[in-house]
Every structure is written in C-alpha cells, then in structure tokens.
C-alpha cells in the first residue's frame, strides 16, 4: 500500500533563504506524487506533480521537487523563501484505487517565514 511520510511537522526559515521540505514515500510500483499547499483559510492548491516523466519537477511560485527512486524521496525545494510562502505543505501519493482520485496525504509541514 502507498504511503508518504513528511519528516518535519514544522520548518522555519528566514526570507530569502532556501526552503527544504522533506518527504519519503512508500509504493509497490512507480508512484504518482504531488505537493499541495494550503494557505490559511484557503483550499488545497496543487504546487507540482510527478508522473514518471522528468525526475526534476518544476512547479508554481518557484518550487521544485526531485523524485529519487533510490532514496524513495520527493523533497520540495525553493531557492529563496518569500513571506507569501508561509503555509502548510502536503506531500501526496496517488492510491491504487480505480478512480485515480484516491490521494494519500502526508501529515503536512507548516512552513514559517521570518522577515
């Protein structure tokens, strides 16, 4: 069965410094992986997705994630944090159900950005 583990519940960075949010996955086959972001009082927004094409995936707002099969990781990075990046981030793997909408979420990482 698929699962994801987000290694940090809370990450704090200073504005202008790099962001690293860690995610490890477990899957019996080649997974579809996603990062979603949730700003306060907003819905979940897709940042980026990996579906077995290029291993380095570029998303919105300058975020990237690299799929590393050998490490079963899909860490999210951004070279320079902005105050508006403060939000909760979810690493997600698609489940193996037939609807393709069965997404399995990690517990989330809350990103704080200090001025």
């Amino acid at each position, binding site marked *: 069965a698929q699962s994801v583990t987000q290694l940090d519940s809370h990450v704090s960075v200073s504005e202008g410094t790099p962001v690293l949010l860690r995610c490890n996955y477990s899957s019996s086959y080649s997974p*579809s992986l*996603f990062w*979603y972001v949730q700003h306060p*009082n*907003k*819905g*979940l*927004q*897709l940042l980026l*997705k990996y*579906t077995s094409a290029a291993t380095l995936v570029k998303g919105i707002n300058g975020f990237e994630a690299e799929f590393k099969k050998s490490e079963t990781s899909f860490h999210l990075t951004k070279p320079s944090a902005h105050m508006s990046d403060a939000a909760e981030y*979810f690493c997600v793997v*698609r*489940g193996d*159900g*037939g*609807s*393709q*909408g*069965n*997404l*399995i*979420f*990690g*517990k*989330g990482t809350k990103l704080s950005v200090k001025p």
Partner: protein
Amino acid sequence: EPEVTQTPSHQVTQMGQEVILRCVPISNHLYFYWYRQILGQKVEFLVSFYNNEISEKSEIFDDQFSVERPDGSNFTLKIRSTKLEDSAMYFCASSDLLLNTGELFFGEGSRLTVL
C-alpha cells in the same frame, strides 16, 4: 479562474442530527470527491463520484454517509446521524476527465463541529 466552492464554511450541529455539505465543482469537471481532515490528523479520502455513481470509497465512508449530484451543478455530502467523531474539515474536489493526471482542484473546506 474557475474554482470549487463549498457551503457552509462552518456548521455546528448536535449529535444525531443530519448534515448536508454542499459543493459546486468546476463546471466542466466530471470527477468529484470528498476528503476530510480531523483536527491534527491527515487529510483522508472519503469517496469519488463519476457518472452519477460512486466509483470508489474508503472504509470511513460507511452507511451514515451518502453523496448526491441533485442537479447539474451541486455535489453534496450527507451525514445522516452525526457523531462527535465526525467533527472535521470536509474538502470537496473535482477533476477533469480529459486531463486524467490526478490533479484535483479543492475547495476551501467546510468545517463541521458536532456537539
């Protein structure tokens, strides 16, 4: 930009009461979903819906839950007799069949509090 809208944003109800949460998916989307997030826990898949029937459901989605698309625009989640443990944020999502990439567009959520 089209978006998924949910009502109410917050509902408080007494245990045993029926609750209906409403969602308006993006107009050309064909797949619809409900997820929930109990405070402090992961976002969990409840059910997916396509072509006027449930295509997949989780073990959480027991006989107390039902979904319906009563007209061409609304997608509802009904909880027949609420329990304390139904208190959660409920997210509606929709996706475009043609994309078939697993990208779900989420609403802002409906917070249900059962007293």
